[in-house]
């Protein structure tokens, strides 16, 4: 659920694939090159790893109980990330797409609010800043 390595979408897709699942909805969060009008050069994610894994597991379990889906998975990268690299992936597989989209949105929102991971942006002008939760849907 937490990795220091580059996230490979295909590898994640094929890893532990569920043959009973007909549809998967993905959320892929990537590092963007701007924030509040500032040019972002790279990111660092800090993490309380053991607690983050517990919290992510809890969020995924809750989604599997709340929504009529087959399975939910998530992977968050930590450490130093370059622009365009994948920071987080959420996958929800289900029989019907509506519930899968809804569950996927709920999971990424909860990851952003309940998992002890922190983002530091390093800007083109050399300054850096720890970011507070943005609370954007």
């Amino acid at each position, binding site marked *: 659920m937490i990795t220091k390595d580059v996230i490979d979408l295909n590898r994640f897709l094929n890893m532990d694939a569920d043959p009973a699942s007909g549809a998967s909805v993905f959320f892929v969060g990537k590092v963007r090159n701007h924030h509040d009008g500032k040019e972002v050069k790279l990111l660092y994610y800090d993490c*309380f790893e053991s*607690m983050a894994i*517990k919290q992510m597991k809890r969020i995924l379990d809750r989604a599997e109980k709340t929504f009529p889906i087959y399975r939910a998975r998530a992977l968050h990268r930590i450490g130093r990330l370059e622009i365009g690299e994948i920071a987080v992936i959420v996958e929800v597989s289900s029989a019907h797409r509506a519930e899968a989209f809804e569950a996927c949105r709920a999971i990424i929102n909860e990851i952003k609010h309940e998992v*002890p991971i922190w983002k530091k942006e390093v800007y083109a002008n050399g300054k850096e800043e*720890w970011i507070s939760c943005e609370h954007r849907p």
Partner: protein
Amino acid sequence: MKIEVRYFAQLRETAGMDSENIEFKSSATVMELLDRLKDAHRIEIRGLSVAVNEEFVSQDTALKDGDSVALLPPVSGG
């Protein structure tokens, strides 16, 4: 009693350390621990969440010998 305190993100940088051990002669709550750390490291405790042994707790929670207390700034994953 002895409490382990762990710092993350900007708090790790402000405190200048990953963790430390804090001793209390008698009982203490999370809030009393935060008060002591605030003065020792000049850290901003408003807006912080606290986890004891990897579970979020309220600030009136009583601490026990050997507890691991994590000071968590507002999270920003995803």
